[in-house]
């Protein structure tokens, strides 16, 4: 009763194989366009047949994404994409399942499914478009809107402390977390490739810009003037260095991180924290994910990538074991199991 995947030769695919014939209706200048292009660049290069991709979304601007990809896809209901993706992946673990979501969809209405999907470690790839605002409903604050920011539902500024997606992911025992900018196509492509290859739930936070309702939300990190001091490209095995002069770095001092300047107070590059994305202990990853201006630069790149058993693998192993060891092999045997009696 398993779904059959017809095995065929992997053919060479191109970006065109994944472009749908539907008109893309995002606002001109929206960060979503760049994300769509990066995904179209990644899919042909994963060695996966085009009919084995399923793209799932919830509701919001970002969630129109599946209509613009020529794959199997479901545009579901607000907040529930993670649950739908779970059903797809469990029903057929051979599929490559991608979930597209936004900050409101994922962390407000869909918060519960989000943390539980991560906790279970189901092998789906989640692209979280974080523009820190509700765009489709025209400008209300979201769970990631900075405290004090004025929106249509916070005319005096929000009172709420925002979520940092990385904290939630790692707090929910997540094993893969990366952060990228929608203005960096190369960075996105590289990170999406890594996310795709990671077995288990992978979460990529894309700092995406809504040109209409919260333009320049990430300006501090993206603008030419300030970005060098406010972003840090992290790379596995490399020290955490940033700044226009590449002379600033992060050290681990006691139980917390600290920004230092190389050459000052006797600090050398050798003193800097070296990034280990494969470290199982989430402590340092959590600290890196939490880094925010003005005290720290924002870390970009793969922050955490740890191999762990996936939910669907455990489920399939359990099914295989029971099929082998149960004395009941057929539905008729089940119906006739236990206490029965015959009337002659």
């Amino acid at each position, binding site marked *: 009763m398993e779904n059959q995947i017809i095995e065929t030769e992997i053919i060479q695919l191109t970006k065109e194989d994944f472009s749908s014939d539907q008109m893309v209706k995002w606002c001109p200048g929206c960060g979503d366009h760049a994300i769509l292009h990066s995904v179209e660049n990644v899919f042909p290069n994963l060695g996966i047949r085009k009919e084995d991709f399923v793209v799932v979304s919830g509701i919001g601007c970002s969630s129109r994404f599946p209509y613009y990809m020529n794959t199997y896809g479901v545009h579901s209901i607000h907040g529930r994409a993670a649950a739908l993706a779970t059903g797809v992946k469990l029903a057929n673990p051979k599929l490559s399942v991608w979930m597209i979501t936004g900050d409101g969809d994922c962390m407000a209405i869909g918060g519960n499914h989000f943390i539980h999907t991560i906790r279970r470690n189901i092998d789906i790839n989640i692209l979280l478009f974080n523009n820190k605002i509700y765009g489709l409903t025209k400008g209300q604050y979201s769970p990631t809107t900075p405290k004090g920011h004025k929106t249509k539902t916070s005319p005096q500024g929000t009172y709420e402390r925002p979520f940092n997606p990385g904290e939630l992911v790692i707090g929910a025992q997540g094993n893969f977390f990366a952060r990228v900018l929608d203005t960096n196509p190369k960075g996105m492509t590289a990170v999406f490739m890594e996310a795709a290859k990671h077995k288990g739930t992978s979460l990529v936070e894309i700092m995406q810009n809504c040109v209409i309702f919260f333009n320049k939300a990430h300006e501090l990190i993206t603008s030419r003037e300030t970005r060098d001091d406010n972003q840090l490209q992290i790379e596995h095995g490399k020290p955490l260095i940033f700044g226009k002069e590449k002379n600033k770095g992060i050290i681990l001092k006691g139980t917390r991180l600290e920004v230092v300047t190389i050459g000052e107070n006797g600090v050398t590059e050798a003193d800097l924290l070296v990034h280990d994305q494969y470290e199982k202990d989430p402590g340092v990853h959590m600290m890196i994910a939490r880094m925010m201006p003005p005290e720290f630069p924002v870390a970009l790149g793969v922050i955490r990538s740890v191999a762990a058993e996936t939910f669907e693998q455990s489920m399939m192993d359990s099914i295989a074991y029971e099929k082998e060891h149960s004395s009941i092999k057929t539905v008729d045997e089940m119906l006739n199991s236990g206490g029965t009696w015959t*009337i002659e």
Partner: protein
Amino acid sequence: MTSKNSKVIELEQVVIRFAGDSGDGMQLTGSLFSDSTAFAGNDFATFPDYPSEIRAPQGTVSGVSGFQIHFGQKTVHTSGDLADVLIAMNPASLKANMRWVKEGATIILDSDAFVEKGFEKAGYKSDPTLDGSLDGFKVIKSPVTTLTKEAVKHLDLDMKTTLKTKNMFALGIVMYMFNRDIELINKYYEKKFKANPLVVDANKAVLAAGFNYADTLEIFVNTYKVEPAPLEKGKYRNITGNVATAWGFIAAAERSGRPLFLGSYPITPATEILQELTNHKNLSIKAFQAEDEIAGIVSAIGASYTGALAITTTSGPGLSLKSEAIGLAVMTELPLVIVDVQRGGPSTGLPTKSEQSDLLQALFGRNGEAPVIILAAKSSADCFYSAFEASKLSLEHMTPVILLTDGSLANGSEVFKIPRVADLPAIVPPLAEANDPDYKPYRRDPERLSRKWAIPGTPGLRHRVGGLEKEDGSGNVSHDPLNHQKMTFLREEKVQRVANYIPEQTIFGSEDAELLVVSWGGTYGVMLTVVEKMQEQGKSVALAHFKHIMPLPKNTEELLGRHKNIVVCEINNGQFVKYLRMNFPQFKYQQYNKIQGLPFMVAELETKFNELLNQ
């Protein structure tokens, strides 16, 4: 071991009620007695009656747990109205159950528990066995606790373990009373507690002690025997509604060739379906316990999109939470079965009591125009066939189905004739073929109006579905006004055309009967019992019991039109009758409703129907 010291009297049918504190093991006692009833060849039905608290304060009325069995030499349709025999392990269980006992019934008490402290906890001002409260009953006071302790003295058990076996003493007495062989129960213990021989020995010793006590002390002048019922040839088992539901889906998966996926969240009284399916990984069943009701149904929709026979199971409060997602399944035109094991509402309501009050929610409880097929199981064993039919209709017509069962069916059990899977109807879902050049997501079958099911992984069928309105045919997102109206009609028409694929409504009794009794879902057993009884008395009464609610069988209007006097009986405040009034306003309906968290009694219905006949 069988009884020898008393005269055996033959009975046609008997109702026994076992009652004790919720920790006294009354459910097990009842189910073991059911097993021996099956072995004796009787037809039977059972019903557990337990509090929603796992362990309410010991000895109080709110902590009483009961189990009723009705068995007979004729076909048994219900778990019985009033008991012929009550076993009461303490004063609270006597107090809680006196209203369920027939006049002149036999009441077996543990006299060790009938002491001042017990009376106080139960709220008795005086000893009910001495103050005349039990006049007119055959009361048998046995020192169950003392004799249990005595029976296991040689095993050197701690007090807690010892007291846990006293239900077997009570069972031993009842087994003697009905001339049953206790060897069957010994075997159960030997198998179940293989790893713990001390438990086996203790229970066997106490069971035998109870049996011998009844025999040697001659507490019964007579013992009783119920001859085997004339059941059709075949192999039988006892089955609860929830297990039958789970098995119906497993059988449907087998017959459709589609893998079974359940997304569910625990909720009383539906949880056993999730548990049962979780236990069948051996048959490749995927049962996913989700983080909430919404994830339960939405994961099932994901699995359905991926080609599974997808189901979700819940009760009323969970159905409320699933409403939006049912709309998604309606819009995406995917197969999905939603089981609602109804309980008393609204809100948390009466979680362990049964009701039929989710019908209107099932019919109308969604945003927009969102029609679904609705079926209602009529008995515990029928849950198997209802789950099977719900799956068949959902898969073949590509639309969600709500299957309504209820707490009584779910927890109650009855005799089930075991079918052969190969004899069940074929299920043929409309799968799209790989690389079909003409494939369009919303192209429809001209007869059923169902669209084709294109499963991810299949080459040449990539497509997107979603909650936004779809253009007919292409399935592209469409905000076109006329398209929306067309699609609304199509979704409605698709469900209405299911009437061509379900049986016509049958009637039990004469087509020109003076009084037509109408009922639906889980009340079938008691309705049939009453109508059968009144027909035997020569009364002009017929029964139309509905299982197909949406759409209604095609002949419904014609059938109702033949009767001037129609009474619609429901365990709610009149929901099906509203639906009939809406569909067939030309007829006059009377109604009989009970909203007490309790099933109908034969006697109350009989009184009502006689009253209507004499009007």
